[in-house]
C-alpha cells in the first residue's frame, strides 16, 4: 500500500467483532439488538424509536398530564436554518425545550486537518456565514502565532476595517430577523438594503460577495481600491439614516416593546455559567469584550468603550446590538482616519510549515467569543484545528430561558440570541 500522507496508518482492531472502545452507555448494544427502524428527522416526536439514553432525554420526552411535544424544525420558518427544537408545551405554554443540532454538521474541523494552512481559511468561511470575515480572522491570527510572524500594519488596519463592516451588517440583519420572527415584515428588507451595500463593498475589495476568502496568513489578499473606498464613502454617508429608519419602525413601536421587554431574562451569573459571550453576555451587564480584554489586531489603538445593558432581556439584547452597530460605525471612522501606508502582505511561502506548537486565538465576532485552537506537528497542515463558535454555546440557554413563556416568545427569544446554524453545527 502506498501512502501519500505523513500520518501513521491506522492499526486495524484485533478483533473486528469487538468495538474499538468500550461503550458505557451501550449504544452498540442498542444498535444491534433492535432492528433498525425508519428514522426520519422529525417523525420521532414522541417518542424516539429508541430508548432514551440520558437522564435529560428522559426528562424531556416524558409527558405529564395535558402536555404534548411540538416539533419545530429542521425546516421551520424561524429556526434560523436547520435547527430542530423539540418543545414540550401545555396549551401554549412552553414547559421544556430540547434543541437538536447537527442538521448542518459538515465536518469542517476534520476537513481542516487535511487542508494546508492557507486553504483552512477558505474552509472556515461558511461556518458562521453571517460573519465570514470574523471566521477568517481568528485562524489567521492563530496561524501567524504558530508561524511566528505578524502581519504588516496596513494589513491589520484593513482587517479591522472589513471585520467591523461585517459586524455592522450582521447586527443590522439581526434586527430584521428579530422583527420577522415577531411578525414585522418590513425591517428585514431595510436591513438587507444595508447588507447589500456592505457586501458589494466587501466584494469590491475581496472579490466575493459572501464567503470572502480575504485573509491570508501574514496579511490580507488585496489592498483597498478605489471602488471600495467610493462605496465606503457613499455607504457611510447614509448608513445612520438607514439604521434610524429601521429603529423608527421597530424600537419605538409599542407592540415590539411589549413583545420583547421582560422576555427571556438572562442574569449575569447564569450567562457566565452557561458560557454565553458577546452581545448576549454584555446585554446581561457583564463587560466582557475580547477586543478590550485581550486586544488583538489594532484594537488597543482605537478608542471605544465596552457597552453593556443591565436588563438581560430580549429588548436589552436588541438595544445592545444597535448600540454596538453604531459603535462599529464609529470604529470604522477611526480606522479609516488612522490607516497607515505600506504593504498588506508579509512574505510567506506558498505552503507554510510552522514549527510544532500550539496557538490559541480569540476574537470578538458579532455573536461573541470566537476562538481557534490550532496544533501544528511541523507538517503542511494543522494537526488539530478546533473552533469554538459562540452561537453554539449560546444555544444552551434556551432550556433555561424558555420555560414559562409562550410559543410565540420562544421565537423572539431565539432570534434575540442570534444563532447562526452554520457556526453551531460546523
Amino acid at each position, binding site marked *: 500500500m502506498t501512502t501519500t500522507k505523513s500520518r501513521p496508518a491506522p492499526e486495524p482492531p484485533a478483533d473486528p467483532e469487538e468495538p474499538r472502545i468500550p461503550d458505557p452507555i451501550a449504544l452498540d448494544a442498542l444498535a444491534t439488538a433492535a432492528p433498525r427502524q*425508519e*428514522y*426520519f*428527522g*422529525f*417523525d420521532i416526536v414522541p417518542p424516539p424509536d429508541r430508548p432514551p439514553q440520558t437522564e435529560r432525554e428522559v426528562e424531556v420526552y416524558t409527558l405529564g398530564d395535558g402536555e404534548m411535544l411540538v416539533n419545530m424544525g*429542521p*425546516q*421551520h*420558518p424561524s429556526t434560523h*436554518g*436547520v435547527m430542530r427544537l423539540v418543545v414540550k408545551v401545555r396549551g401554549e405554554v412552553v414547559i421544556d425545550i430540547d434543541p437538536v443540532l*447537527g*442538521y*448542518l*454538521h*459538515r*465536518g*469542517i474541523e*476534520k*476537513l481542516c486537518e*487535511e487542508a494546508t494552512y492557507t486553504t483552512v481559511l*477558505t*474552509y472556515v468561511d*461558511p461556518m458562521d*456565514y*453571517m460573519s465570514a470575515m470574523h471566521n477568517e480572522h481568528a485562524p489567521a491570527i492563530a496561524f501567524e502565532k504558530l508561524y511566528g510572524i505578524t502581519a504588516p500594519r496596513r494589513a491589520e488596519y484593513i482587517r479591522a476595517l472589513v471585520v467591523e463592516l461585517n459586524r455592522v451588517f450582521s447586527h443590522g440583519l439581526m434586527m430584521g430577523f428579530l422583527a420577522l420572527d415577531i411578525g414585522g415584515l418590513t425591517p*428585514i*428588507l*431595510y436591513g*438587507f*438594503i444595508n*447588507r*447589500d451595500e456592505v457586501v458589494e463593498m466587501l466584494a469590491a475589495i475581496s472579490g466575493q*460577495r*459572501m*464567503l470572502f476568502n480575504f485573509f491570508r496568513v501574514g496579511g490580507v489578499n488585496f489592498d483597498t481600491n478605489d471602488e471600495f473606498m467610493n462605496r465606503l464613502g457613499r455607504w457611510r454617508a447614509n448608513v445612520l439614516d438607514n439604521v434610524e429608519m429601521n429603529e423608527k419602525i421597530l424600537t419605538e413601536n409599542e407592540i415590539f416593546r411589549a413583545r420583547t421587554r421582560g422576555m427571556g431574562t438572562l442574569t449575569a451569573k447564569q450567562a457566565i455559567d452557561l458560557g454565553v459571550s458577546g452581545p448576549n453576555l454584555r446585554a446581561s451587564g457583564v463587560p466582557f469584550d475580547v477586543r478590550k480584554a485581550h486586544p488583538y489586531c489594532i484594537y488597543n489603538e482605537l478608542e471605544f468603550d465596552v457597552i453593556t445593558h443591565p436588563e438581560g432581556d430580549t429588548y436589552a439584547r436588541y438595544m445592545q446590538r444597535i448600540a454596538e452597530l453604531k459603535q462599529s460605525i464609529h470604529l470604522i471612522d477611526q480606522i479609516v482616519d488612522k490607516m497607515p501606508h505600506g504593504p498588506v502582505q508579509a512574505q510567506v511561502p506558498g505552503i507554510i510549515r510552522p514549527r510544532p506548537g500550539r496557538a490559541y486565538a480569540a476574537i470578538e465576532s458579532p455573536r461573541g467569543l470566537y476562538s481557534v485552537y490550532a496544533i501544528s506537528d511541523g507538517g503542511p497542515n494543522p494537526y488539530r484545528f478546533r473552533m469554538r463558535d459562540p452561537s453554539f454555546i449560546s444555544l444552551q440557554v434556551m432550556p433555561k430561558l424558555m420555560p414559562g413563556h409562550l410559543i410565540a416568545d420562544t421565537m423572539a427569544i431565539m432570534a434575540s440570541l442570534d444563532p447562526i*446554524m*452554520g457556526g453551531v*453545527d460546523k
Partner: protein
Amino acid sequence: MAITTPPKADEPIVIPDAAGDDPLLGEFGMENHPQGGFHGLLEVIPTRADYILDLIRANSLWPLLSGLSCCAIEMMSTATSVNDIDRFGMFPFRASPRQADVLIVAGTLTTKMAGPLVRLWAQMPEPKWCVAMGTCTTSGGRFKRSYSVVQGVDRVMPVDVYVPGCPPRPEGLIYGLMKLQELVKQRRGQWGTYADRGPDLRSWEGDVR
C-alpha cells in the same frame, strides 16, 4: 358495400408526429411544445388549455421557505428590495410545503438533513420543481470529502435547475429561476416523469453520502 383493406398485422400503426408539419402549431407558437402535437380541431382546446396552465404556473412559482445554510442568506437577499423576485411572481415564500411550488435547496445537504429534505419534497403537491442552489447542493462542493455531506442533492431527489456558485449571486439565482420558467413553459421539468414513479421515501438517515 365498399371494401376496405385492413392494415396488415405486422405493419406498425404509426401515429404521425405533428411537430413540425402542423400549420396550427406555428400559429400558436407551440412548435417546441413536447406535448404540443394536436391532430384535430377537438384537441385544440385541451392542448391550448394546457399551455395556458403552463404559462400560469411559470409566472407564479412560490418557493418554499427553507434554507439550509449560507446560500439561504443569498436566497433571502434575492427576495429583498435590491433583487426583487416578486417581480416574477415568486415572492410569497410559503412556510408550509403544501403550498409551495419550488424547493430551492439552498446550502449544504448533510446526511442527517437528507431524510427531512426528501420528506419535504414528498409533501409538496404536484406540480413541483427543485432548484439546487450553490456548489454544495450540485456536487458537494468544498465539503465533498466530508463524512457527513451528501455529494449533491440529486442523489436523493430530482433536480430541475442547478445554480452553481459558492454562494451564487442573487442575480445568478434569478437567472436560474428564469431558466426554470422556460422549463415549465416547455414542460421539460422533472415532475411529470417523477410523478409516475413516486418519491422514494426510504430512510436516508446516516446512510447517504
